[in-house]
């Protein structure tokens, strides 16, 4: 049932392939988490400035993406993304076929999903900061940039870290859906291996263990970060 000999490194087993697949999962997760955080900051900014239009767009974006299955978002970006890029290229006079590579598509798709969760976390963190602190900083004559860097950012990071840790776990697990686009990460590699070796149980359990390993250890990493950033508070 469970074929341990198929998991060795080298030509006889799938050990090295699975190791590279794990690295690919990590790379996609980190890239899309980063891009997602960037999008989330823009979304939060759009929600808190006093503009109806940007707030409407940001709310529409978060509501729709959070109300639609992740798989649909990925399908839409994977199959529709090329068409969008090609139609943009047509405007600039290029009529050929363009195909974005799988890693780019995967990163963008997961980042769009991850950003909706991150933006809620960051917004809650921003709102939990006492307004008096910003007023005090203004009274001291700090400009807006210094207020953000010295007063807001350190506190936002501290408040948001537990939530960001949760979003990271969700993002990491969402990368398994990217396997439908053909990017060879843990899920895809284990499906390929189980089809070749006719042993789905071996490779699916291995995939589950690899995900468990990633989520557990990154969870520990976030715990350490939390302790580091809350120094001087407890």
């Amino acid at each position, binding site marked *: 049932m469970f074929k341990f000999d198929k998991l060795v490194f080298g030509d006889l087993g799938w050990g090295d392939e699975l190791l590279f697949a794990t690295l690919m999962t990590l790379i996609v997760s980190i890239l899309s988490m980063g891009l997602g955080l960037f999008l989330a900051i823009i979304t939060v900014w759009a929600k808190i400035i006093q503009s109806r239009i940007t707030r409407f767009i940001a709310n529409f974006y978060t509501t729709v993406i959070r109300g639609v299955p992740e798989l649909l978002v990925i399908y*839409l970006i994977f199959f529709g993304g090329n068409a969008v890029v090609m139609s943009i290229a047509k405007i600039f006079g290029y009529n050929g076929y363009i195909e974005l590579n799988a890693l780019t598509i995967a990163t963008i798709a997961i980042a769009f999903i991850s950003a909706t969760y991150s933006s809620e976390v960051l917004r809650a963190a921003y709102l939990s900061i006492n307004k008096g602190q910003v007023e005090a900083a203004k009274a001291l004559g700090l400009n807006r940039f210094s207020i953000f860097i010295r007063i807001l950012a350190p506190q936002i990071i501290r408040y948001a870290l537990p939530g960001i840790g949760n979003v990271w776990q969700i993002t990491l697990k969402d990368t398994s859906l990217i396997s439908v686009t053909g990017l060879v990460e843990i899920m895809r590699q284990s499906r390929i291996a189980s089809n070749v070796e006719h042993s789905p149980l071996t490779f699916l359990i291995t995939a589950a263990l690899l995900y468990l390993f990633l989520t557990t250890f990154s969870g520990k990493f976030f715990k350490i970060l939390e302790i580091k950033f809350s120094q001087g508070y407890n």
Partner: protein
Amino acid sequence: MEQLYISLKDYLIFKNFFEVIKGLDNTILLLAISLPIGFILSLIFALGRVSKITFLAKIIAGYIFVIRGTPLLVQIYLIYFGLGSIKAIRDSFMWYLLKEPFWCGVIALTVNTVAYGSEIFRGGIQSIEKGQIESGKALGFGKFMMMRKIIFPIAIRKVLPSYGNELILMVKATSLVSLTTYMEMTGIARRIMAKTFAPVEAFIAAGMLYLFLNFLMVQFIRYLEWKYNAHLRVSN
């Protein structure tokens, strides 16, 4: 004769919409079975998790750890492809369930939601003040009475927002069952895409239906919150 106007139903997106809506009942069927069973099992598991039988509590904690640490897709594949590859299971009565992608989906969704749900309920149960339970004891309540009259009503009010969140995640999670060839809304949208080569129209049609389904779910949760928090309602 030359056609002078294009009627609404000639638009691909509307055609797709009526095609995808045929999968709505399959999506709802998945939810209708896995959500109630998941709810009841979540409660039982949460009670087991906080019980004084450390052996039981440890097993449930391990189960929650494994399920929450792995993607739902792995769980669906493990049940659909993995369990089916064991000969002992293929020969047993379980094969009647596990050979159907539908039941594999139901089992995977239930297993998944129980792990998240029982953690939510555990939070609700543990957040109950000691004094409430002590006063229950002072009134001579037995274990079952305590459960029914004190712990359950207080816990359910506390966990409603987060359990509601979990319910919405479950609506979205049903789309993954399409990867086991089960034809619910995402599966049909994918088939339309393969037929028409128009991905955007197909997936937006499905997306609108999911949004609608989640909208109904949110209304349902809001109604429950309104109903159970009668004591907090402001009368005017």
